[in-house]
């Protein structure tokens, strides 16, 4: 076990991470899945929405490697195209969450006073509800749809992270290097942007790597409930939703997308655990 705290930009970081075999398995899975997401449209043998009417519900074979669904669409192509949405949406949500959390958290923590009180009371209110339930309610107000589902998750998840960033800023604000920056006449904005925020990067990286899996799961659940992407768009959660009508006779329709979701989430979790153990040994398991 490595005891010292390593910054993300440390030159030793890749080497230390490579020593953690479990994290490397995670990295491998994540790399494969993200590649599928990026290259999906090129790799996919067929148009994901093309219906081959004569060959519905085919078992895996030479022409359709993983078979076809109830409308005669190639499952492999749909899985590949689905990766783009399932992983991409989670990544996009993460970017928004981190941006909001950094902005709100650092301003609230650094400025303090009324701004801090106001921001933290909003955060308290959001944290008073179980996450998915509040997200569901927001989807209920905005109406079903892919963007709305993503928005709802962003609107719920930012709160916890903002509070965390605020705590880190409060801690960093008292450090000697911030005092020296102030002493040599740096403006408050400069201190915040150049001296405090860069110190947030390592913990934020840990958060991101641990949050991706959770977000992929949450997005897939909302899509499974039929609240996100609408047919015929290929996405893993909605493929599960479409497959469940036939799951007794054609279980493979549900097995493939489920395996994809589980593997991807597992990959992100393993990688996240590894990164956390390196950067923040306090929370290592």
């Amino acid at each position, binding site marked *: 076990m490595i005891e010292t705290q390593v910054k993300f930009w440390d030159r030793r970081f890749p080497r230390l991470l490579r020593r953690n075999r479990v994290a490397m398995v995670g990295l491998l899975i994540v790399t494969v899945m993200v590649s599928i997401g990026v290259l999906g449209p090129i790799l996919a043998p067929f148009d994901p929405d093309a219906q081959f009417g004569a060959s519905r519900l085919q078992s895996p074979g030479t022409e359709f490697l993983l078979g076809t669904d109830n409308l005669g669409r190639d499952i492999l192509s749909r899985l590949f195209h689905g990766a783009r949405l399932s992983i991409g949406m989670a990544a996009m949500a993460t970017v928004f969450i981190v941006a909001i959390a950094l902005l709100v958290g650092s301003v609230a923590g650094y400025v303090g006073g009324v701004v801090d009180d106001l921001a933290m009371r909003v955060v308290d209110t959001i944290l*008073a*509800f*179980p*996450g*998915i*339930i*509040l997200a*569901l*309610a927001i*989807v*209920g*107000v905005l*109406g*079903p749809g892919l963007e709305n589902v993503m928005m709802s998750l962003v609107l719920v998840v930012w709160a916890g992270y903002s509070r965390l960033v605020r705590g880190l800023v409060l801690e960093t604000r008292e450090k000697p290097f911030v005092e020296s920056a102030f002493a040599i006449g740096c403006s408050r904005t400069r201190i915040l942007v150049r001296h405090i925020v860069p110190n947030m990067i390592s913990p934020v990286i840990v958060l991101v790597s641990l949050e991706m*899996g959770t977000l992929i*799961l949450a997005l*897939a*659940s909302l899509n*499974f*409930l*039929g*609240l996100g992407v609408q047919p015929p768009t290929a996405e893993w*959660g909605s493929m*599960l939703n479409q497959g*469940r009508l036939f*799951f*007794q006779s054609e*279980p493979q329709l*549900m*097995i493939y997308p*489920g395996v994809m*979701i*589980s*593997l991807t*989430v*597992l990959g992100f*979790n*393993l990688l996240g655990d590894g990164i956390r153990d390196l950067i923040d040994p306090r929370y290592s*398991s």
Partner: protein
Amino acid sequence: MDKLREEIGLNDPFIVRYGLWTYGAVRGDLGTSYRTGGPVWDQRVSRLWSTLILAGGGVVVALVVALPLGMLAAVRQDSLLDLAARLFSLVGAAIPSYWLAYLLILLFAVQLHWLPVAGSVSWQHLILPCTTLGLGGAALLSRLLRSSMLEVMGNEYMRVARAKGLPERQVILVHAFRNALIPLVTVMGNMLGFLLSGAIVIETVFAWPGLGRMMIDAINFRDYPVIQGFVLFAGTVFVLVNLVVDVSYTWIDPRIRLADSAQDQGR
């Protein structure tokens, strides 16, 4: 159409509507469902019961699996059992609960015919949904209990307990387990939120007539009063559970007193 709008007050400004809803809500009147025309509160009671049974069963399964698993994994660190427990918690955290539900249905209901596929008639209908919910929770809890136990077992008083000749069983159960419980109880509070959320999805899979399905139906029909009522209710339950958790700290660990800065010692 215009008359209906006037009747349910959709033409009033937002502030007026919010005020009226709040005024009603504090007096126990959550408004009228757009879809059924009946009061939102009436639909709730029977549904609430179904969901609570489901979530309660989930908690039981989670504890029955997680407590022995987490404890044994910590006591026999790095053994085969420990490895299995860690694998279980990793995989359990990655598998979507509703997908696990279908796999269990396929195995136990479709292939083996041991249990019913879906519905809510007899107690056998409870087994699969509760197991599905509980396994997800158990993955989380067993991992936490393991690391918490390992931390506690590194303490000096464990050595003292062994040195004064206490049987190993008592050392583990009384000295280690009880001290390892605190972080677990904190998470149990969040678990109920997790189980409530999980129940929403699971109810759809098992055609279980609980609050979750009511919520999904309400979203699809844009039945806003029902959605509002549900969120208010879920928030209340969540806050109450966390209160119970805070109070139970003192019972588990007499060192913690709520009157003086409980937060400092809360860990």
